[in-house]
């Protein structure tokens, strides 16, 4: 019905041993769209996000980004997992921001941002450094370029992590609860950076508990529970007029 999606998720299943975490999830994300995924803990929303860049292997279903199958290739009637090197190449198109930042503590903020373009995309170091400085400026940290992560606040670390994800010029950026590990007064600065990205037309999929952010920035809000998408739609519809009982119950708890 629409043009091809930037991210297309089709019928994905994932189980950890006997536990079915994802039980058939479909999702389409257009280029430039901001999708916020909400849901109670244990609902599978993080696993869903991690499946998109193949940090989790799927049991069934597939993920396509810009038309390219992620983590697998089709051969006859099967999906064969790609070689690690191929998966790593695909991941350079997918930015990922972790809940715990996962900055490399032995590298400075600048070195953190420069690392992937040099190592994974074989960009010349000079070029990568110039780009990294611009990105650090964009997240408001040009004065911290030479600081080691441990000397930065949580909010600053997460902003460096966002710059690091952007350095690869990804087609889509995934955020896994980017503000959950932060002190309340530091949440705002990270959300500001994310809002700015959204305004610049970055395709984003965000798992978060920040309902305010979802209401203000999201084009689409997706509510996940028990490994399934319960309902999705514009924020005004899902957040203010949820149709499903489980959505209502969840929103009643977090709002």
């Amino acid at each position, binding site marked *: 019905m629409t043009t091809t999606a930037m991210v297309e998720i089709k019928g994905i299943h994932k189980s950890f041993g006997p536990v079915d975490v994802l039980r058939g999830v479909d999702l389409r994300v257009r280029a430039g769209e901001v999708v916020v995924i909400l849901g109670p803990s244990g609902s599978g929303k993080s696993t869903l996000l991690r499946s998109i860049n193949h*940090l989790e292997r799927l049991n069934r279903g597939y993920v396509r980004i810009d038309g390219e199958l992620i983590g697998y290739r089709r051969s006859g009637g099967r999906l064969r997992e790609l070689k690690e090197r191929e998966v790593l190449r695909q*991941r350079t198109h997918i930015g990922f921001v*972790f809940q715990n930042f996962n900055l490399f503590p032995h590298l400075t903020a600048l070195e953190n941002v420069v690392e992937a373009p040099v190592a994974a995309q074989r960009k010349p170091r000079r070029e990568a450094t110039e780009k990294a400085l611009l990105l650090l400026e964009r997240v408001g940290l040009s004065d911290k370029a030479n600081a080691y*992560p441990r000397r930065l606040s949580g909010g600053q670390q997460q902003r460096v992590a966002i710059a690091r994800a952007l350095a*690869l010029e990804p087609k889509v950026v995934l955020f896994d609860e980017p503000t959950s590990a932060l002190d309340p007064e530091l949440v705002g600065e990270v959300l500001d950076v994310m809002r700015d990205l959204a305004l610049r037309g970055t395709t984003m999929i965000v798992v978060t508990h920040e309902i305010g952010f979802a209401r203000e920035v999201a084009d689409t809000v997706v509510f996940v529970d028990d490994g399934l998408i319960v309902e999705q739609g514009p924020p005004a519809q899902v957040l203010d007029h949820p149709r499903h009982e489980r959505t209502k119950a969840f929103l009643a708890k977090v709002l």
Partner: protein
Amino acid sequence: MTVDGKPATRGFSPIGTADAEPGSEVASLRVVPARHPWRWVASGVTVVLLAMALHALVTNPAWEWHVVSQYLFYETILRAVGVTLQLTALGILIGFALGTVLALMRLSPSPLLQAFAWGYVWLFRSVPLILQLLFWFNLALLYDRISLGIPFGPSFWEFRTQDLVGPLTAAALGLALHQAAYCAEIVRAGFLSVDQGQLEAAAALGIPRRRQIRRILLPQAMRTIIPTAGNEIIGLVKGTSVVYIMAIPELFYQVQVIYARNGRVIALLLVAAIWYLLLTTVLSIAQFYVERYYARGAVRMLPPTPWQRVRAAAAQLDAERRRRRSDRQRLDAELTGKEAP
């Protein structure tokens, strides 16, 4: 530098404002830190004991210090120190290279590789080093020839074991293979100490596997590896002395050869002891700086080097002297000022 006794007294204000007069008096008093008389006594006793020990060492002629000084830089001894260093270097380099491979095998998803690495560590840690060395020394008795070729198939090159594995090679090989078992565990502990999220982040950024290990995993693991590795290296410097049973002219063997000839047993043992002390001292200092290097980013402030510490102490003394002088001048000025009107 501003944090010391005196400025604090100015900031001190007594609780309660009712007796403001005596309070302001207290505020101007000098602060005296608590005294620790028993600490002084203990220090004194230690100094006396140390002096006694030194005295006994210097004055007793049985130590034969003149013989020690005569042999300390004897050419044969220096060459023997060279052999000891060579064995240590080979043992550590090959040991850690092989140990890293074993650690990676142990952490690989393949159960076969895991089992092999576990088995290696089990075997080489369980058999005493001296036995292992004797096995390598007598390799020629077990396998007369060594050949290179297709496994279980034809061979292209053949060597006589005796030509290929001389005593020195046998010793280096024995030390390295034994060391590898210990190194494997040290490296594995280092890898395990790095947060799983680090590799996940590297994978999410598409950083190639080899670079993940070299650039992300190893530098962080080094923080855990270095202190234990330092232990191992120092242990091996002294551990090389067991190869004397293979008649290899390393330090301990050479010293024995010399005292067997001239009978100056104690003096020559002392020569060996001094050299071992010297080598481990150099290694300990090197370890300090290597540790400091890998601490960057991991601690907020790097610990100062001894030289930096000396300079900081000197600067503090200087500042204190200057402060005292200015205090005195101010006091003088106040006194003369009071008397003047």
